[in-house]
């Protein structure tokens, strides 16, 4: 699909454009909408955001590239960002991160062979008293250990499988 002319986004796009003094200010919220639609910030999304805000696509692309929460390439179904910054690391986050990569058979920043999980480490997420922790598709999961994580991975796999089946049955 697209974000322009998509009734799913129209109200939100208009709200964001209206709330600032300049159109340009809406570039960040609109990039989130593009990412929601395409799963990552692809060229189509960049072009549409540029068109909506009367900007040059290269300007929009440089904004997207500056921030880590806009993904410039497709990720797994679950994008796992493990905090390994100092306070979390003092509570075992480095070992947890290494274990998780091994468990899923991925390198730093890589995606598991089944396309399900991307794993990378990130800086402090303001949850340092609940380490080890990660965000999964931008949702915080806190106070983790290996057992809890194994259960979560199984749960997410099952949820992904269920939604695939649902889609093929449609």
């Amino acid at each position, binding site marked *: 699909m697209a974000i322009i002319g998509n009734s799913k986004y129209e109200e939100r796009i208009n709200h964001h454009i209206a*709330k*600032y*003094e*300049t159109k*340009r*200010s*809406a*570039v*960040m*919220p609109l*990039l*989130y909408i593009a990412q929601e639609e395409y799963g990552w910030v692809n060229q189509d999304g960049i072009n549409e955001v540029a068109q909506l*805000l009367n900007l040059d696509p290269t300007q929009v692309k*440089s*904004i997207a590239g*500056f*921030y*880590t*929460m*806009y993904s410039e390439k497709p990720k797994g179904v679950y994008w796992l960002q493990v905090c390994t*910054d*100092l*306070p979390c*690391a*003092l*509570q075992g986050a480095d070992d947890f991160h290494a274990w998780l990569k091994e468990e899923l058979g991925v390198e730093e920043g890589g995606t598991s062979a089944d396309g399900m999980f991307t794993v990378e480490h*990130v*800086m*402090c*997420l*303001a*949850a*340092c*008293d609940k*380490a080890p922790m990660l*965000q999964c598709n*931008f949702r*915080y999961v806190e106070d983790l250990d290996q057992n809890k994580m194994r259960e979560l991975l199984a749960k997410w796999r099952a949820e992904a499988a269920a939604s695939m089946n649902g889609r093929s049955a449609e």
Partner: protein
Amino acid sequence: MHILLRGRDIDNIKQLAVYEKHDGFAGMKKALAMTPAEVIDVVKASGLRGRGGAGFPTGVKWSFIPQHEPVKFVTINADESETGTFKDREIMEENPYQLIEGSLICAYAIQAKAVYIYLRGEFWDIGDQLDECIEALREKGFVGKNIMGSGYDCEVYTHLGAGAYICGEESALLNSLEGYLGQPRVRPPFPAQKGGGLYKEATVVNNVETLANVPYIMSEGADAFKAIGTEQSAGNKIYCVSGHVKRSGNYELPMGTTFRELLYDHAGGPLYEDRPFKAMLPSGGSGPIVPLTDEVLDTPMSYEDCANIGTIIGSASIIVMDETVDMTWVASKVTKFFKHESCGKCTPCREGTYWLDKVIDRILDGRGSPDDVKRIADVAENMAGTTLCALGDFAANPIIHTIRHFPDDFAQHVQS
């Protein structure tokens, strides 16, 4: 007593009716009955200082805004990205109306047209909650046109960042909000001046915790606030404790409480009984590290007393490390943070953090020499004070102070 983390004392204070029942918007009502200049005087008299790190007197900051300018803004710094900081999150999650009330009082005091709350991108669900609060307030006539029948108009909006620590620096925050790269601006002009703020208009930038204090100051009076804390550090502060303590978490206590009381009585002392404390970063990764000696433990947590022990209280993101922690590894962790977060605009910061990281890795690998240790100390000394924003100084701190206080931790890696 909690002034800020009232969500811990009062169930459902995040609901407007409950917040109102517990003196919510009493401060706002008082403020609207005064002139803007009188409101600024109350905040000045309270001694409130900025909780975002620099500790600048809040009322003085507001008084810099030129009254005659027709368009002014308030921007709330909810970027909360300093390593070890998780206090603004609890305020906004559990007591959101108090932040909005404080922001509106600030807005009235400088006669701002609108308030923008700049949240780190990961806080999108907090943003959704704040949006709901703003709508509830609009329905009551507390946001928008003719607030509480006063004739004063003000809008409140949220804005999400997208993962860049540097956007917590106030001028980078403004660039980011305007849709430009989130890089710091050359100053002057400062945000409070025409030409330097949001959309080039005079703008107050305040931290979440700073503004969440303001309703109390207005409703209880400047003297009540000033009675808490020390002479130069008034009020309560939220201390974020993490690392090797039994009970990590947020603790709201008067400024001037000692580190010992915080770390032993509240946070429960060392995580492992047989591993005593070794060091502490009192202001996240960006402030100077100090050894946890008795002298340091008995120091009151105030702006003035922390300066006496060679560090800062800053954002009070207190990271505690026990005797098993190698300070070379700490320097490496913190350096990797700043290398990742340098916006790349100035050469000493961009190249310096890159180079420091490489050499520290070499030292940690056992391939370094005693000269390498001297060299990183020199590079860090030369970086400090030469950059456009304070991140360059922050990045120099961990190197300079870990080497100064813990030379043996470095020496063990280079004497083979």
